[in-house]
């Protein structure tokens, strides 16, 4: 019998302090939660690290930290609203925006060995005032099973990214040739790889806004580029010559993605959280039909998201099987239920292999939403389970 009572079952404190392998995984914890430090394990920092953010300084109380779960206790002592980022090179590890003057916020993050920068951005503009932080230890403690999971997932992400390059090349060529029909048929398939590994791609903060932004989500002054710019041009009869530069840039971006995968920060927890984020994408973007507003190929993305999440679960299964076998049983059943719910929409006669979403009725969308919810609730526990916090 599967228990869906999972949210009531979390023990007060971590059951056992397993060698905490997770690194780079993010938790945005509400302020002054005692649990934020309870959860520290595996050599992580025991106490919160104070960050005093003012209009002209970003004082981090300790700059040499042990690896593991670390809580930055941020106090905005300045006169402006501020935001605090933790960077690993150009990668955003975690961030908290909108910290008002005189207020505090606890930002919990799981840090592996390496150099980081804590940046305070008074007024929430610019590169911020930066403080370098060195983290030692904590990253070499992956168990063999955890290392296997990370390696397997990285290989999967690499494979998906690599496979996307020639598909985008073909799409670009069709756009450049002004061949609308061919380009339309190549559009959805070119996105599947991206959709299956999107959380990793999003961890490179600059790529996602260029490659996958939706027109409705543009900020003032932001260029509309990437797949959805091409989608709009392809389905609204625009002159394709005008978007050839967009297609050229998209090709460069997928090539860059493929090159950056080896440097992506991947941990058991980030894999688990990424699976959850993929289902979030389904729930907020695909079920509603907002993702592919012109092409209506949402179900192709949906399938990519679910397959990517299922792969993440598959590589983590040996790890989670030890920590939380019940979760494995439940997720196995719920992934199967979602795949079964998607199956009737498979349509080999369409380029992406799935029915156009504008043919899916409201009742059918509700049924899809229900199976997605049934999977997403237990899936939200996967990141913690991968870190031994069950």
């Amino acid at each position: 019998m599967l228990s869906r009572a999972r949210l009531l079952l979390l023990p007060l404190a971590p059951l056992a302090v397993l060698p905490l392998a997770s690194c780079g995984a993010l938790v945005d914890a509400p302020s002054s939660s005692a649990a934020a430090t309870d959860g520290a394990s595996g050599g992580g920092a025991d106490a919160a690290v104070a960050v005093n953010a003012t209009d002209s300084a970003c004082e981090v109380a300790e700059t040499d930290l042990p690896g593991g779960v670390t809580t930055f206790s941020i106090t905005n002592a300045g006169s402006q609203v501020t935001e605090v980022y933790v960077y690993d090179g150009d990668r955003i590890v975690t961030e908290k925006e909108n910290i008002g003057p005189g207020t505090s916020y606890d930002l919990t993050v799981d840090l592996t060995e390496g150099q980081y920068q804590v940046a305070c951005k008074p007024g929430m503009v610019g590169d911020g005032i930066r403080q370098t932080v060195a983290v030692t230890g904590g990253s070499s403690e992956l168990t063999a099973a955890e290392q296997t999971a990370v390696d397997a997932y990285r290989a999967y992400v690499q494979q998906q990214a690599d496979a996307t390059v020639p598909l985008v090349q073909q799409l670009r060529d069709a756009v450049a040739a002004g061949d609308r029909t061919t380009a339309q048929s190549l559009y959805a398939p070119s996105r599947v790889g991206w959709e299956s590994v999107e959380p990793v791609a999003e961890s490179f903060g600059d790529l996602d806004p260029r490659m996958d932004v939706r027109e409705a989500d543009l900020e003032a002054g932001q260029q509309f580029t990437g797949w959805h710019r091409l989608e709009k041009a392809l389905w609204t009869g625009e002159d394709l010559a005008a978007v050839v530069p967009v297609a050229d840039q998209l090709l460069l971006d997928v090539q860059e993605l493929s090159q950056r995968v080896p440097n992506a920060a991947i941990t058991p927890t980030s894999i688990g959280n990424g699976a959850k984020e993929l289902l979030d994408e389904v729930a907020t973007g695909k079920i509603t039909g907002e993702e592919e507003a012109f092409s209506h190929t949402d179900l192709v993305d949906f399938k990519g998201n679910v397959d990517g999440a299922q792969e993440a679960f598959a590589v983590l299964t040996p790890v989670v099987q030890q920590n939380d076998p019940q979760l494995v049983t439940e997720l196995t059943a719920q992934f199967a239920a979602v795949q079964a719910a998607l199956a009737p929409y498979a349509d080999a006669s369409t380029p992406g292999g799935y029915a156009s979403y504008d043919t899916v009725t409201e009742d059918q969308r509700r049924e899809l939403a229900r199976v997605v919810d049934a999977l997403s609730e237990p899936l939200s526990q996967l990141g913690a389970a991968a870190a031994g916090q069950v």
Partner: protein
Amino acid sequence: MTGVSRRGLFAALGSGAVAGGLVAAGVATADRSGASAAASSGSGSARVVPFHGEHQAGVATDVQANLHFAAFDVTATSRDELVSLLQDWTAAAVALTAGREVGDGGASGGAPLAPPSDTGEAVDLHANRLTLTVGAGPSLFDDRFGLAAARPAALVDIPAFPADALVPERSDGDLCVQACADDPQVAVHAIRTLTRLAAGRAAVRWAQLGYGRAATVDPSAPTPRNLFGFKDGTANPAASDTATLDAQVWVQQGDDDAAGGAGAWMAGGSYLVARRIRMHIETWDRTSLQEQEQVIGRTKAAGAPLGHAGEHDAFDPRSLPASSHVRLAHPETNGGAQMLRRGYNFTDGTDGLGHLDAGLFFLAYQRDPRTAFIPVQTALARQDALSEYLEHTGSGVWAVFPGVPDGGYLGQQLLST
């Protein structure tokens, strides 16, 4: 159900040692005092209405200020899963109605890498007299869970009435949960929590928020007004009037014997009829005072029956206009049938034409809808002058489970048979 999770669940919520599906024996002998309708402990926002008792709370409980009502479709595929859902809901309801956070870590004490077990928006809001009242609709009694033979004869499908404008997306449901509290956020938190717990086993079919209690079971309190500006629920049974409650509201032992006893498990329960009644506020507001009073059958200011001075004056319903609402709905016009009304006003924004999408979310508890709601509504739908201003847009009927004894679970009387 695995023993581990069950033990973990109940231990987490502090409801005492319970395992598997026992305790059925305790049902019939539950201490009645525990169900005493108006009993609550604590003061102010900390007031707690006891969850356990012979009857579920939230029926003959002093009507709270706010409502969040939700109807669920059960998506579970086995009876065991349905039982596990109701057990989990019971454990959560015990915590929620006591004003406690759900789950081991609550809102912020759990593992930092996992989502909190309690969603947190009711932290510091206390119990606020939260009650959670759960029932089973006719659709639950099919072959999915082997319950077809246990469908009580009184749980009939509500027939179509003239001028019904029912929307399927606002009607029916395998299960219903009525959450009432004196703080709206407490009620919303409760439904949100039960919905989250139900993932994979049940999904919300429709829901309704209500405010401004449109009825009372406390004769000493002023009778509340509905959105037409009239007092509503003057003749409601009092929570203290146990004789009337037993005669009109609670299902009694032996009620279902004539029908072969299919519903014998319902003793101590009640039947709930919900109707989402859209009111055409704007046209009503253009109606003269005299016309309004003739339509209702009471005065607007005092709520007195027409021709009388006081709201509670004795009157002969036949003295009121033939098509007036109070005359047609009066027990004497309906063979003595009376319902415990527990409705709430609702305002769901506008209808897109600049008119309020507002009205009465009618909730009525009764011993048998065949002799209460159905004949009353049949008469009203045909003759009630008020119908011109009303549109029934949603409907449902549920067998509200008998009360839960300590250590038992919601619906156990049905599911342990």
